[in-house]
C-alpha cells in the first residue's frame, strides 16, 4: 500500500500497465492475421458450400434454389454410401495402423537397449514429407503385376501363390490402397506420441524400475495413461484427416475398378468437375464435414469416458 504513494513506483506502475496494454494490442494484432486467413480460406468457402448445397447449379447460368432436394438425393444415393463406407473403413484402418504402429514404436523408443534412435526416427518420419501424389505413384509401381516390387519379393520368398491382382480385385482393393496411406503417416503420429512420452518425468520410470517393473508393464501402466490425452488427439487427427484422403487413391485406382475404391472426396470431385453438378458436389462436401465432426465427437466421447 505504501508503495502506491511513492511517486517513482507509481510512475513505474503506470508504465507497466501501458506496457501490458501495448503487449495485448500486439497479441491481438498478431492473432488477427491467422484469424483473417482462417475466415477467408476456411469459414467463407464453408458457408458458400452450404449455400450451394441447397441449389441446383451446373456451374453456368443462374442457380436454382431446391431446398433439401440435394440432401434427399444424397440419402438415397448408393454410390455415395459406397464411398462413405470405403472412407470410414479406410479411416478405421488408418487409426489402427497409423496410431497403433506409432504407439508401439514410441513404446520401443523408451527401451534403453535401442540403438540409433535418431536414425530410426528420421527414417520412419521420412514418408510424411513426401507429397501424397508421389506416394500414390510409388505404390502403384510396387503393386504392379509384372515389374512390381511386392510380387517380386513374394516370388523370391517362394510365396508366388500369394500374388494377387492387388489393385484389380474389388474384394481387396480397399485394403490395398489403405497400406500406403498408413505407411505414409506412421511417422507423423510417432513424432506426436514420442513428444508426449518424452515429457513424462524420468523419475516415475526409475521408481517403477526399482519396484521391478519390466518394459511391458512400464508401457501399459505408466506411458499409456500419461499420454492418453495426446493419444486421443492423435486418433481424432488421424480419423478426421482420413476423411480428406484423395491423392493416393486418385493416382492408384481413380476409385476403380468400377467404384469399388471410391472415397467421398473423389466422389465429390467427380460430381462437381466431371459431371458439372456443383450443387450436389457441395452437398457431398458438406457431408464430409459432418462425417469428420461426428467421428471427432464419437472418439472424444469414447476415450473421455474410458479415462474417467
Amino acid at each position, binding site marked *: 500500500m505504501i508503495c502506491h504513494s511513492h511517486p517513482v513506483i507509481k510512475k513505474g506502475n503506470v508504465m507497466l500497465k501501458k506496457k501490458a496494454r501495448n503487449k495485448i494490442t500486439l497479441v491481438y*494484432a498478431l492473432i488477427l492475421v491467422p484469424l483473417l486467413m482462417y475466415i477467408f480460406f476456411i469459414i467463407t468457402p464453408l458457408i458458400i458450400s452450404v449455400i450451394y448445397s441447397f441449389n441446383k447449379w451446373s456451374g*453456368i447460368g443462374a442457380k436454382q434454389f431446391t431446398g433439401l432436394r440435394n440432401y434427399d438425393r444424397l440419402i438415397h444415393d448408393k454410390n455415395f454410401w459406397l464411398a462413405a463406407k470405403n472412407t470410414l473403413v479406410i479411416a478405421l484402418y488408418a487409426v489402427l495402423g497409423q496410431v497403433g504402429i506409432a504407439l508401439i514404436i514410441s513404446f520401443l523408443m523408451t527401451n534403453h537397449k535401442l540403438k540409433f534412435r535418431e536414425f530410426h526416427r528420421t527414417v520412419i518420419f521420412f514418408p510424411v514429407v513426401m507429397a501424397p501424389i508421389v506416394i500414390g505413384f510409388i505404390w502403384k509401381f510396387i503393386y504392379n503385376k*509384372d515389374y512390381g516390387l511386392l510380387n517380386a519379393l513374394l516370388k523370391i520368398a517362394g510365396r508366388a501363390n500369394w500374388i494377387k491382382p492387388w489393385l*484389380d480385385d474389388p474384394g481387396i482393393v480397399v485394403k490395398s490402397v489403405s497400406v500406403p496411406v498408413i505407411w505414409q503417416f506412421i511417422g507423423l503420429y510417432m513424432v506426436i506420441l514420442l513428444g508426449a512420452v518424452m515429457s513424462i518425468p524420468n523419475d516415475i520410470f526409475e521408481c517403477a524400475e526399482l519396484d521391478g517393473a519390466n518394459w511391458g508393464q512400464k508401457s501399459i501402466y505408466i506411458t499409456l495413461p500419461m499420454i492418453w490425452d495426446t493419444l486421443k488427439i492423435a486418433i481424432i487427427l488421424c480419423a478426421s484427416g482420413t476423411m480428406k484422403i484423395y491423392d493416393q487413391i486418385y493416382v492408384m485406382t*481413380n*476409385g*476403380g*475398378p*468400377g467404384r469399388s475404391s471410391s472415397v467421398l472426396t473423389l466422389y465429390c470431385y467427380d460430381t462437381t468437375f466431371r459431371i458439372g453438378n456443383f450443387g450436389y458436389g457441395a452437398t457431398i462436401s458438406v457431408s464430409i464435414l459432418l462425417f469428420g465432426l461426428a467421428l471427432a465427437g464419437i472418439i472424444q466421447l469414447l476415450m473421455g469416458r474410458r479415462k474417467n
Partner: protein
Amino acid sequence: MKRRKVLSLFLTTILAVSMLAGCKSKSGDPAASNVPDMITAAPDSSTTEAGGLDGASFSLLHFHKTTDESGTGAAYKTASDAWKTANPGVTINEEFVAHDDYETYLKTLMASEKLPDVFICKGDMLEQLAEAGVIDPLDDDIAGEWGSGFSEGALNDGTVNGKPYTIPFQLQANCTVVYNKDILTECGVNEFPSTYDALLDAIEKIKAKGYTPVALGNSAKWVAESCLFNTFAYRYVTADWFNSLKNKEGAKFTDEAFVQALADFQKLADVGAFNSDMNSIDNMEQKKMYYNKKAAMFIEGAWCVGDIIANAPDDVKAATEFANIPEVTGAGGDKDAVAGGAGWGYCIKSSLTGKNKEAALSFLKAVSDSGYGAVALQNGFISGSKVENVDTSSLDPVFAKYLAYVSTVKQQPIFDVQLPAAVSEELYARTQELLIDAVTPEEMAQYCQEVLDAQ
C-alpha cells in the same frame, strides 16, 4: 526492445495488408494468379480503330502443347506463328493448360464466370453454355469457303439444335486397332481377323504363344469404353439408334442389341483377350506393352499414331498395321462404323464483338481451315478440314498407313462426347466392372438407363 516492437508491429501490418491485397486480387481480379494478364487485358469491344485488325485483342485458352515435335501442338504452333507474324498489331492473351487438366480448369472458369473470349470446348458442355447465352451459333461466321471446307461430320460434335457452336480443328477416329503383323504371323494368324469369331480364334492362338492379345490400360476408366467398346457396339447398333437413345426417342440401353454387345464384349475379357491388370495400368503403359512386343495389339484413338511415330522401336514401327474392329456376323450393325469426330472445337464468347471478334475469327480460320489441314497432315494428324491432293510420299510411313485405314471407315457419334457427363461416368465405371465380371450385361444396361432417365 521498443525498436523490436515497432518492427514486429510493422511486419504484422505488412502481412495483414498483403493478405488483404491478396484477397482483393482473388475476388477483384477475375483470373487471379493462374491466368496472368488474361482477363485484365481483355478487349474493350467498343473501340474501333482504323487500319485492318491493328489494335484488336482477345484472350484465348487452349490445350495445344506447342513444344511437341509432332501432332496437334506442332501444327498449331506453325499455323498460329504464321498468323501472328502477318498480324503484328493484334494482341492475343494466350494461355495453355495441359489436356488432362483442361476440362476441370474450364469448368472452374465457367463457374466463376471468367471464361476467356475464345476457348476450346467439348460437345457435351455446349448446350448449357448456349442456353445461358454465353456463346452464339457460328453459322454466319463460317459461311462460305471456310465452312464448306470442313470434312463430313466434323461439325457434328459441336452442333446444338442444328446450329454449329464450335469450329473443329481435328477429326479423329476414336478407335483404331494397332497390331504387329510379325507377331500375328508368328502365332499363325496370317491376316487380321475380319469377324468376331475369327478374332476369338486368333486370341487363343496369340495366347498360346505367350503374348497378351490386346494390351489394355484402363485405369483412367475412359479407354475401354470410349476407344474399344463404343466402336464394338456399332457392330450391333446404328447411329440412328444412338441418336434416338440420346434424345430419349424410344431407344434404350436395355435394348436387346446393346445388351448383346455388352455380353460379347465381356466375353472378350473372359477368354483372356486383355492383360489381367487392365484396370490398374494406364494407356501409356498399354502402348509400352505393345512397343516391348509383349502384346500383339492395342486399341486406341487416332492420337496414338503420333506416339507410335515418336516412341516405338523401328522394328515395331515397320510391323505396325491398322485395322478396324472386326465385323460381327448377323448382329445388325455397320462393319465400317467407327466412333469418331471432332470432339472438341473453338468457341467464341458472345461478349466478344466488333473488331476483336473479327481478329478472333481471322485467327481461328488460320488454325482450322484447309491450309491448316495440310500443315496438320505434315505433323501427323488429321484436321477438321478437307485437304485436296495429299502427297503421301512426304508423310511418315506409319501415318500414311493410318490415313489409308481411316479413309475406309465411317465416323459415327462418340457416346461419351454426346451423352450427358453423368451417363458417360456411369458407362466408364460399369465398363470397368463388366471387364472383371463384377456386373452382368443386363445389370449394366439397367444402371446406365437409370442414370440417363434421371437426366
